[in-house]
């Protein structure tokens, strides 16, 4: 056994491992849409964290006339209570993002673990869990939302639970399908042949393999959660004590901002919600590409095809 297929080059010549920051930067360079989304996100996260320090006015402070028009002192005008809309928007960012992230994480934890258990063990466990999932899947979101909010009361915590309750089903189904694929991989069989416990296989082989998907889906789910939070608040089921963007739209709407012609009370939170959702989507869809190392190997990488116009079918006259 003197020869092995080819002489090996020393490892440090083959692989110069790039730093985390470097790989993040190169990821953003390769996916310009993710870069745009990432910048928007960072901006909103910055506002959510430090907003209260530079918001021009307080979130409950009446600083001018009802539905005061935008001016240099109030760039986005005033709302129905004479509160500065820009300041409200800045305060609302924190609530909206917290609910979005927390709701998505709850959905990820519940849906992810049910999906993993269901997909890995299969059989009767799978059947029982999936029928439960189906049950939650067919419940109309809006009705569930209204019922839960009116029974448990209107608080931020309850909104987060509702969001988790509605979205874990999607997560569970998706993760289950992926786990079923991973479970059949030969290296999982090998671990089984070695006598590894289920816990070990799940934590060492299955979860690392589906982590990119889990992460990308969570990012996408944040967008959905923010949308749902806005919807819940708009229906008047939001936490009455905090100002989220959905709450801003709801108050402006119910205090007939439209008939006053006060577009500035309704448009800014709407645009902010749309921007954040778009940003999360842009980052989420690109994230999966890069987080999966197998996709980096050239022959397995997702290929981008460009559509070329078909030749004219009509014969030249």
């Amino acid at each position: 056994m003197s020869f092995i297929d080819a002489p090996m080059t020393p490892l440090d010549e083959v692989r110069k491992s790039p730093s985390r920051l470097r790989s993040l930067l190169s990821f953003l360079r390769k996916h310009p849409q993710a870069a745009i989304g990432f910048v928007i996100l960072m901006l909103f996260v910055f506002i959510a964290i430090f907003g209260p320090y530079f918001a021009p006015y307080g979130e409950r402070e009446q600083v001018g006339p009802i539905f005061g028009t935008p001016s240099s002192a109030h760039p986005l005008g005033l709302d129905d209570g004479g509160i500065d809309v820009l300041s409200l928007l800045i305060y609302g960012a924190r609530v909206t993002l917290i609910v979005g992230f927390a709701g998505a994480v709850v959905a990820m934890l519940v849906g992810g673990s049910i999906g993993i258990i269901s997909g890995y063990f299969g059989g009767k466990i799978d059947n029982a869990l999936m029928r439960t999932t189906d049950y939650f899947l067919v419940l109309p979101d809006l009705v569930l939302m209204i019922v839960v909010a009116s029974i448990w009361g209107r608080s931020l915590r309850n909104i987060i639970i509702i969001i988790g309750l509605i979205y874990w089903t999607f997560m569970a189904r998706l993760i289950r399908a992926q786990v079923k694929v991973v479970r059949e991989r030969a290296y999982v069989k090998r671990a089984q042949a070695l006598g590894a416990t289920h816990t070990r296989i799940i934590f060492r082989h299955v979860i690392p393999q589906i982590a990119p998907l889990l992460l990308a889906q969570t990012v996408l789910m944040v967008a959905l959660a923010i949308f749902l939070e806005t919807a819940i608040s708009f229906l008047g089921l939001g936490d009455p004590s905090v100002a989220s963007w959905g709450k801003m739209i709801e108050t402006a709407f119910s205090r007939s901002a439209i008939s006053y012609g006060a577009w500035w009370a309704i448009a800014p939170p709407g645009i902010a919600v749309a921007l954040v959702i778009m940003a999360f989507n842009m980052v989420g869809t690109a994230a999966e590409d890069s987080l999966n190392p197998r996709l980096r190997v050239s022959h397995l990488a997702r290929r981008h095809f460009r559509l070329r116009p078909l030749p004219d079918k009509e014969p030249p006259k």
Partner: protein
Amino acid sequence: MTEPLLQVDDLVVHYPAGRKRVVHAVDGVSLTVAPGEFVALVGESGCGKTTTAQAIMRMAKVTAGTITYRGRDITTFSQREMRPIRHEMQLIFQDPYESLDPRFRVRDTVIEPLQIHGVTDNREERVRAALERAGLTPAELYIDRYPHELSGGQRQRVSIAASLVLEPTLLLADEPVSMLDVSVRAGILGLLDELRKSGLGILMITHDLSTAAHYADRICVMYLGRVVEEGPAHEVIRNPQHPYTKALVSVVPQSDPDRATKPQILQGETPNPINIPSGCRFHPRCPVAEARCQSEDPQLRPVGGAGQQAACLLI
């Protein structure tokens, strides 16, 4: 013969196929592997070779028959009881591109069996020794790599190293070279041969009769869930008795043109293992079948050379 390491008697594995149909994946296989013996299980795709190996590893449900490992009947062992057995019995998979976790470095893959079986002393040395025993020298060059940075042959060596690290007594190799380039096959087979010489029992599953002929001590030929011929490798190859073995041997290329036989191509395809033919299961494709082959089911019985057995009514 010394006491066999592994003895399989009348192993039957049936899978339900829905609507009361049953897939007869393995339908009465018997074989033995002694320490230091290299046994090849040969047969075409779908004849139940892999299922046999999985049943021995207790990864497929055994319908009937017994599996005896070192004198202990492990057929009905629970997964917990199997753990110490799994320490000594290792399975090498066919596809080195699939059987290594892409997120594990070579070290993690080879150390995993030690972690599973709670071996805590000298892990690093054991890993290095196993890698070098599997022909990956020096170990430093490979130990920190990911599978996608290795060639197919190197991956299979990593896989073998992970099997050797627990110092097993029995290796089940499920087509260890069929996914590899021809140029690296000899290296891997030579490695298995060396391990055999150091006292391991090896059961290699293959569809390649010529590699079996070159490396194995004994050959078992399987057809449709049954062993149709079994015996010392040179007897089975030089003097095949069963018509199926004859057909298989006739298509192996010969280096000497004077000795080359006319390849005998079998008609038709392997029957569906859901509907096993009556009588001798080979009769629909057998070139010499007679009327009684359709009704009588032949059993393995001694034929030809010493220790050779075949299941055919016409011998």
